[in-house]
């Protein structure tokens, strides 16, 4: 991610617009990006300082380019690089040796005289000779551990120039979020993924749903209820790539500007063409789910419509997104969760969710093989909404239970 100093954004009509390179207006950046990648690919052995200076050179002819944009590209390239950090402390050892040797000649003067007889050039040559090398070689290694003088060891990033530009656009959006106070996501799909990654980023959610089934997920942090704070902005920025990988969402962040208490709105959506480096989420968590969905589609039961992960059950900060939702024309709703794992922790958390949302119609599908195990907990076997299956969950079995389920 970029540092906050590298963020570029424009304010217009209450909106915050992060710097963005568009193919239409910035097509020539593809050529610069290609040269930047070439610079780093061929740059093993060069120092950061040299690489950054060379990168600046590439932008020299570019009329419309702020310095921070160039520095941001350098940061993104550095992030994908390994630099020789001199972990064993060779440079520090060399410094201690050279400086201690030089100490008895202090001060090194430009021109020696009768009082101060140690000329800089002479002493340096003598030290180099004593260490069996040249002064140039020593000078080259003396500060090799200092960040600007570290040498590139390996560059592993960005397959194409387009990837670098895509990363840049996302990075500027992330940097714009560093001072965000809250983040609202309107989503119709991938709710489970969005909530999971928000939780990993330690954000606190508030959930509601409108009449069309769009969920509004409002994210901020624990202290946000006490005061407007940007302290969770970095967490929101970390969360953004996960959101970008999802489908069917739009978001709006409230971003603080300076000390005056003003805020600007940062709006993004799945249709903005921002490309996440993360792959899109798998459509199904398991083969059992995929097969069941296919079987259901083939059997086409007209009375019930099925959808995937479209309902979020929530109570305080606990959420439960069952795998499938069955909606009857008359308004009955039944939920289906497929037990996908067998670890005690997983089953315990499933049990907690089912007990928390007792007032909902929830079916739980579990394989016979799991139920036969000696140590499986009795609550699972006794669960009223349990559906057993052998090799795969069949649509017809679920349909039968839907009809039996409490009216």
């Amino acid at each position, binding site marked *: 991610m970029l540092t906050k100093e590298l963020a570029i954004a424009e304010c217009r009509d209450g909106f915050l617009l992060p710097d963005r390179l568009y193919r239409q207006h910035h097509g020539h950046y593809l050529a610069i990006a290609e040269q930047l990648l070439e610079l780093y690919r061929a740059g093993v052995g060069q120092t950061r300082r040299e690489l950054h200076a060379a990168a600046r050179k590439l932008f020299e002819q570019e009329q419309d380019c702020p310095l921070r944009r160039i520095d941001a590209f350098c940061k993104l390239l550095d992030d994908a690089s390994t630099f020789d950090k001199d972990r064993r402390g060779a440079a520090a050892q060399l410094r201690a040796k050279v400086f201690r040797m030089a100490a008895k000649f202090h001060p090194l003067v430009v021109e020696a005289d009768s009082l101060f007889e140690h000329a800089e050039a002479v002493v340096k040559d003598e*030290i180099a000779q004593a260490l069996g090398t040249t002064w140039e070689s020593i000078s080259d290694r003396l500060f090799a551990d*200092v960040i600007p003088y570290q040498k590139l060891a390996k560059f592993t990033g960005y397959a194409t120039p387009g990837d670098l530009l895509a990363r840049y656009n996302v990075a500027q959006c992330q940097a714009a979020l560093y001072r965000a106070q809250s983040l609202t996501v309107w989503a119709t799909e991938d709710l489970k993924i969005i909530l999971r990654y928000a939780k990993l980023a*330690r954000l606190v959610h508030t959930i509601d749903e409108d009449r069309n089934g769009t969920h509004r997920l409002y994210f901020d942090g*624990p202290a946000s209820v006490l005061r407007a704070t940007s*302290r969770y902005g970095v967490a929101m920025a970390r969360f953004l790539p996960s959101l970008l990988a999802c489908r069917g969402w739009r978001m709006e962040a409230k971003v603080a500007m300076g000390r005056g208490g003003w805020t600007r709105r940062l709006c993004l959506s799945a249709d903005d063409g921002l490309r996440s480096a993360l792959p899109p989420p798998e459509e199904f968590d398991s083969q059992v789910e995929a097969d069941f969905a296919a079987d259901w589609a083939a059997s086409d039961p007209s009375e019930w419509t099925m959808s995937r992960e479209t309902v979020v059950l929530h109570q305080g900060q606990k959420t439960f997104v069952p795998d499938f939702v069955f909606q009857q024309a008359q308004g009955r709703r039944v939920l289906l969760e497929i037990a996908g794992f067998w670890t005690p922790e997983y089953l315990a958390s499933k049990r907690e969710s089912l007990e928390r949302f007792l007032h909902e119609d929830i079916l739980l599908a579990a394989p016979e093989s799991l139920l036969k195990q000696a140590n499986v907990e009795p609550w699972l076997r006794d669960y009223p909404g349990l559906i057993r299956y052998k090799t795969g969950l069949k649509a017809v079995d679920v349909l039968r239970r839907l009809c039996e389920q409490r009216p």
Partner: protein
Amino acid sequence: MTAVGKYHLKFDQGTLTLADWTSEGIAGVFSDQNPWLWDGRANVWRCDAWHYSSVKRQIDLRAWQVEDWATEWPVVQFPQVSLPSLRTHQREAVERWLEPKSGVVVMPTGTGKTEVALKLMATLQVPTLVVSPVRDLMYQWHRRILQGLGYDSGIVGDTAFDVRAVTVTTYDSAAIHAPKLGNRFQLLVFDECHHLPGDFRRDAARMSLAPYRLGLSATPERSDGRHADFSWLIGPTVYNLPIADVKGTILADYEVVRIPVHLNTQEQARYDQLSAEVRQFVYQRKQEDPQFRWRELCAESALDPAARSAILAFRHKQSIEDRATEKLRVLEDLFRLHTGTPIVVFAGSNAMAFEVSRRFLVPCLLSHCGKKERREILDGLQAGDYPALVANQVLDEGVDLPAVKVAVVIGGTASTKQARQRLGRILRRSGDAKAVLYEVICSETNEAKRSRRRRDNDAYQGTRHRRM
């Protein structure tokens, strides 16, 4: 009144929470001071962690049955306390702080703030977090705690996250990790506490339960006036020892000598050309918009190549001032003049610091130095193995250099705080020797203006001028 039951006070990521209380119950118990706000997202009452002591006091006062699940305070016993006996003013500071057990102690640099803090830590024997501005100081605290209390403290910062009952950290790390650290310390020590009230850094105090808080500073005032927030972030000023009271007694008598240098012909020509570029640009902008401020430039550089080149010219100007060749020549003269006396050189930038280090082959103390190398350089200077060292901002505050009586400033900014802190470095009394601070600046440039501003500070009274 609502029924008495078992309630739990919890720490949640830098905040305190209390569940299952009605608004009437809250209003009844916290009638004097009610910090609680309802948090419908998690169905709890919530407040900032720093309210902990007052919350506890009010709960205890009314004998409510609340189980305290908030704190995670381990028992601390310092294995070997060996602290020097305190001087009168230090003893006074200790006694004053111990009355409320929270507050700011103001003492000039070099008058033994660290010893006051160590004494208080040894007295209280509670889990303690020591927060300092830079990692050099963090490591110095680590060493002083080991020497004085025999305790090997944990370190949070500089890529380490090792929390122990006594831990040292920096302001940035303390604020970043406040949601995880806030319930684990009973005493907070804020070294150079004027760094605390920043928007983000204040979370280090705000998100902590610690009832005991000690702020240390020579210069508590901030230009933005936010030191007023110390009253709740730390506590009131409990002790204040002005610099005039100690000059010549505890601190060494000192003298400031200002040495003007000139840019060489080449530098001057380039400097004038760059100045003209910048002036021209600002002039044009003011014609278009009389309200134009130089500060707005950075925002503009995104869209305007002319603004960009003006900024580049300005930066280049600064680097010419900072790295004027003449400064190295003056430095050579000063090294000649003070041969045999350890000297500390403060550079205005890392680039200049490296240049001095390469030119004179003296060690430079910069952020790249690890714990070990830092120690080696500082010990080496004290033992006389090194004749001098050069530093950038790193040494600005509080790093101990007891033997140094000569310092040279060859670049820096105009902030009064920085000036006084820098003086603090050489003000350490050692025998009868008087300390000298040389300030080497380019005449007829912005640096000269900065120096004039710096001399408004009372610590710089009586500056002499000298041409070399």
